[in-house]
């Protein structure tokens, strides 16, 4: 074990990923997170737009926030100290697509089969979301 290694093992502050930390990045990520989540909540609570256009707007916020957080909080890159974080993300993305995608497909099919408008009382009234 080299000296530098030994030092890094005993002093947590000497870890390269800790050395990357910057107050500016953390604060801006925090402000972004609170701001975007707050706007999303506000839009949902006040019914500022119709339910159908609300979902893409909130989804866009969420995706933007995901990217911003992974860059600003986690500092994702392919350097030696951060490679495993990036590998984890690579693993998570397919799982995310799989679980969300299959769920959407399942609910779409379910909605088509059991919420048919011919059946009285089964259609999803726009008013029920209000």
């Amino acid at each position, binding site marked *: 074990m080299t000296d530098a290694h030994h030092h890094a093992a*005993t002093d947590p502050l000497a870890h390269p990923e800790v050395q990357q930390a910057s107050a500016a990045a953390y604060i801006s990520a925090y402000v972004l997170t609170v701001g975007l989540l707050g706007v999303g909540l506000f839009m949902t609570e006040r019914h500022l737009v119709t339910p159908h256009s609300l979902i893409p707007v909130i989804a866009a916020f969420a995706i933007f926030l995901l990217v911003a957080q992974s860059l600003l909080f986690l500092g994702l890159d392919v350097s030696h100290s951060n490679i495993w974080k990036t590998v984890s993300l690579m693993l*998570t993305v397919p799982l995310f697509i799989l*679980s969300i995608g299959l*769920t959407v497909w399942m*609910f779409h099919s*379910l909605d088509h*089969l059991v919420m048919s408008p011919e059946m009285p009382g089964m259609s999803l009234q726009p008013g029920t*979301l209000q």
Partner: protein
Amino acid sequence: MLVHLQGPWSPWFGRLTLGDIPYTNPVIIFAFLFTVVAGIALAVPVLYYRKLGYIFREWLCSVDHKKIGVMYIILGLVMMFRGFIDGMMIRTQQVTADGPHSPGFLSAQHGYLPPAHFDQIYSSHGTLMIIFAVGPILTGLGNIIVPLQIGARDMAFPRMNAISLWLSVSGAMLIMASLFIGDFSTAGWVGLIPLTELPYSPSVGVDYWMWALQISSIGTTLNAINIITTIIAMRAPGMRWDRLPIFTWTTLSTNIIGLTAFPILGVALALLGADRYLGTHFFTGGQGGNLMLYTDLFWIWGHPEVYFLVLPAFGIISEIIPTFSEKPLFGYTTMVAATFAIAGVAWAVWLHHFFTMGAGPWVNTFFSVATMLVGIPTGVKVFNWILTMYRGRITYTTPMLWSVSAILMLLIGGLTGIMLANPAINYTVHNSVFVIAHFHCMVLLIAFAIFAAIIYWFPKVFGFRLDEHSSKRFFIFFVLGTVTVFTAMFALGFMGETRRLDYLYDPQWLPLLIVEEIGIVFYCISVGYFFRMLYVSIRDRGRNQCGADPWGTARTLEFLTHSPVPFYNFAVTPHVNALDELAWRRANGHADTPPDHYEPVHMPNSSMIPVIIGVLSFGFGFGMVWRIWWMAGFSLLAIIALIILGSFMPDPGYTISPEEMREMEAQHRAPGIMADSHPPHPAAEERLV
């Protein structure tokens, strides 16, 4: 913003009133007395031998991965015992409540348990067995064995390891509290929706279930991070990926599942909590809610969770069969590939838990095919085990007996699983006890592997073997019980008995129900032999002491160091030369070569913080369950403050000098797990207090 609740509420005690203590229920009074007697039986010797300080210092505050593992396993075994009593009560209720002329005892019309009480029992049976028995035992085994198998000193984050343990304990304690204060959920371990919503379950039962799962699942997630980091970053020199023992591989894959799946459970429960506490409508029947979304989220976690449990069991079997066949594992590479194939497919099968929801033929076909695909890597594993045994020099020690029987259970459970994966069959037997018998075969395969592992690694950790005579009887009666109960249950499933019945309407089921009850008697006898095994082994521990390799034919690195394993694991970090390092060293005559020089060893300090966090998280859970806001708020703030303070406290650990190490090794006075660990370091002691 908070949901308005009917019934009394006070700022100091929340919803809790004296009427919530079920002191009029004879079954619960008996359970309470039993718990008190067991508690006294444990407390008296501890106080008599003045071991309170030792237990606090050496166990509760320990960050040693082996002690944490042992505590995980003790927690799991205690919860398994309670879950077993629940199972026994379920079977006894059903056999006494079959047909309109069945008698009623106590306050029940049929059998001895009224419906609401029976529902709580099957809910706690499932929750305890899956989340608080099998889960913690496997986590504990991973904790003990993985660092030893890869030649590490401890886990990557020792203190976080202890925090994981105490979070699991506090979840289990919440379920124990629900037995005597208030009630437990009646909605099954899966949380049947919309029954878990506030209008249908207004009591605290669902809250107990929800917070117990939530708190312990945070512990599981932290533990998954810890194990993955340990395996990636802490391997001894020469421990390349292609030399990693198979149990470590399965633990790695299982914890990848744990890390990715458990947050989904957290989200599902948090949204349910928002419905129950804040009046949102995520999972309600109307008002824009979607109750199937809960079922979907639950099983996106729930199915990977099943493989989270079964993969380490496969790893255990893959370690034990080569040891007692005196042959290397057949098809190491395919075994690893099969493990990760199962872990991968685990993410695309969850919908088979609700084929009957009506998602349509295409969706059902996709999930049906995906589910059947699991059979391929599992089949690879079964053939690998059989080919490992083929022309091997087999010794039928108890761990081997458990492992071989586990393969049989896997076959029965797996083949019935393939049947259930077919939507056409699934529509017919959905919610029947056929399904219950199927998944009990799978979970019992895990239990078989657990017992194999406990007997196999016990001498490594404690330095003496468990008594073979009584452990073989424990095995025989457990297998008899399993076969008797679940063969009858498969048949009852085909005869149309549905699950979770407190009253059975068909008197023709009675003969098979009696067969199931006979199986429960076998189980009871086996539990007796289990306790006898512990008693005899501890009594005769002097005679059964063993060396580094208690079995003589073990193959992996953990059997290189002393038994019991000293607190520093290895005197010198071993250099790994081959897959099955110990077998390689034995073959090349290096098994007993003492190291020529020692190096300073850096060890972590004990800490009080994890156990305090555990107590506080119980306080948080209890406060949230009863809506005692001051208690929940105080506990949460204190946890956050402790974590922040703890991370600012300098914790350099301590170092064992080469001279100390040489002395301990030469005199064989390296203390085992039961002794006081290292001569106390003044600085470490000071920091503890």
